[in-house]
């Protein structure tokens, strides 16, 4: 099993606070992991570091074989564009644009031509079960559907890692379960998935849990 994510003695401090204390974590290719813990336990900080949106204060973060510390901002951007997909609690969809455009926009920084982006966007939307919602704008979709659009955007570029930060946080339990089921399917098809959640039921249903407390993996 190849390693996709490797955190070695990773510490992240902000002025006055240490959000992560010497965390070690290894995630292999094809894993499906729940990161659980109360708010303030450092889950999101860790996800930001794994997603290369932030750099550690000390320690080593290695994503898909790249040592984040040795990469420039441009190289990190390229890494995010090709290898990492994000799903956020609040969806982050552009309000005036239909599902297809929102998903295709996620591929804007991969260098693909517009037509190819739209083709892949349609495929991704079909894959998340929204093949009949291509032309719908976010306000015409339910919360669960919006999050599915966001998931489609994250996986349209076929990333090595999918990072989901509280993907069910804004959804009712039925929609939330649907989204988790979708993540499970994507994982079954080969994508490595990390899900942040404080819902223990969801966490318990996933193959591996990483419990966190006060900035440490416990």
């Amino acid at each position, binding site marked *: 099993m190849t390693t996709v994510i490797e955190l070695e003695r990773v510490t992240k401090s902000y002025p006055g606070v240490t959000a992560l204390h010497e965390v070690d974590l290894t995630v292999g290719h094809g894993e499906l992991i729940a990161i659980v813990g109360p708010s303030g336990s450092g889950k999101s900080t860790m996800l*930001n570091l794994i*997603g290369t*949106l*932030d750099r550690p204060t000390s320690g080593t973060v290695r994503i*898909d*074989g*790249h040592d984040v510390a040795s*990469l420039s*901002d*441009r*190289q*990190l*951007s*390229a*890494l*995010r*564009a*090709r290898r990492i997909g*994000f799903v*956020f609690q*609040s969806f*982050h969809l*552009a*309000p*005036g644009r239909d599902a297809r455009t929102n998903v295709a*926009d*996620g591929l*804007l*920084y*991969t*260098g693909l*031509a*517009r037509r190819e982006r739209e083709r892949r966007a349609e495929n991704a939307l079909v894959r998340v079960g929204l093949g009949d919602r291509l032309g719908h704008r976010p306000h015409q979709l339910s919360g669960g559907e919006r999050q599915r659009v966001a998931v489609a*955007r994250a996986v349209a570029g076929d990333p090595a890692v999918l990072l989901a930060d509280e993907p069910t946080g804004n959804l009712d339990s039925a929609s939330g379960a649907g989204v988790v089921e979708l993540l499970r399917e994507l994982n079954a098809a080969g994508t490595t998935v990390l899900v942040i959640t404080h819902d223990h039921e969801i966490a318990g249903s996933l193959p591996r849990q990483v419990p966190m407390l006060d900035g440490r993996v416990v």
Partner: protein
Amino acid sequence: MAALSPARLRLSDLLRLGGYGLRSRPLRAVLSALGIAIGIAAMVSVVGISTSGQADLDEELAALGTNMLTVAPGRTMFGDDATLPDDALDMIRRIGPVTSATAVGSVGDTSVYRTDRIPPGETGGLSVVAAQLDLLGTVDAELAGGRWLNAATARYPAVVLGAAAARRLGDVPAVYIEGRHYPVVGVLRTVPLAPELDNAVLVGWDAAKSYLDFDGHATRVYTRSIESQVEAVRGVLAATANPRNPDQVDVSNPSDALIAQRAASSTFNSLLLGLGAVALLVGGIGVANTMVISVLERRAEIGLRRSLGATRGQVRTQFVAESLLLSLLGGVGGVLGGCLVTFVYAGTQRWPAVVPLWAIAGGLGATLLIGAVAGLYPAIRAARLAPTEALAAA
């Protein structure tokens, strides 16, 4: 492990990105583009109007000819009014390249009234001028109505009114000068090369002598010369008109005066251009302001784009592109507005409407420059935003 380098944004994608921000808030885009539009419109229309005026003047001068020279008495060395010698006109006519010459004489101390009922003193500022029969051809004057003096009417009380004099006196069958009624036989159109005739009430040379104590001295001689010899004629006119005191003769070229008069209005133009520049500056500040607000409002979008793999440079380029599109919107509107103003104004003045290409290109160039400058700072701020911070803002 492949080397990591970010993909370039295609130009078409960049334009779509820039337009996206504007389309999501169309009213704001239009309002902030309006400032630029007003500035550009002001500048384009000022340049357009003065160019159209120039084009009209050029046409006018081409029609009128620039070969007219006038000779008038100047002042003696003691500061008194000089007079031209009696034979001045004949001498001038003998200059080779002079093709025609004619004289008018101002009849001093006479006032013109509509009727004998008007109290003396309310003269209306009109002057009585004695004219020779060949005046019209030499100064290129045309009749608006009636007829010109002829050998008969030139000897008897009869007048032809200049255009302004006719307007001031109204449609009268006769005017009242020095105790006598003079029938109005004709009215002139405006004479561009001899504007002094517009205020004149013209009487025949002999009639002026017989009825108005005209002393027979020419107060202005109009000449036409062969076009290529105008400067040479100008050089000898003074000495020919008054060989004894050539320094007491004023020689001038009325087309030069017309050009000078139009040039005087260019000071006014530079004032308007300055105002246009100020409007443009204010418009630029408006665009910068809009862009700063846009960056603040769209922090979540910036964070999302960074997470999707946008580099700092690509975020910066997106906002600069948006700013450029915004000011270009204003610039195009301004150029169209400026052209419209020019066409309408030129239409009312019966000028040929001309907007020079350099003014249009300059206007659009200026808007692009403003857009780039106004957008740069907000774009740099957007690019510097840390992705995590930007995402947390939502």
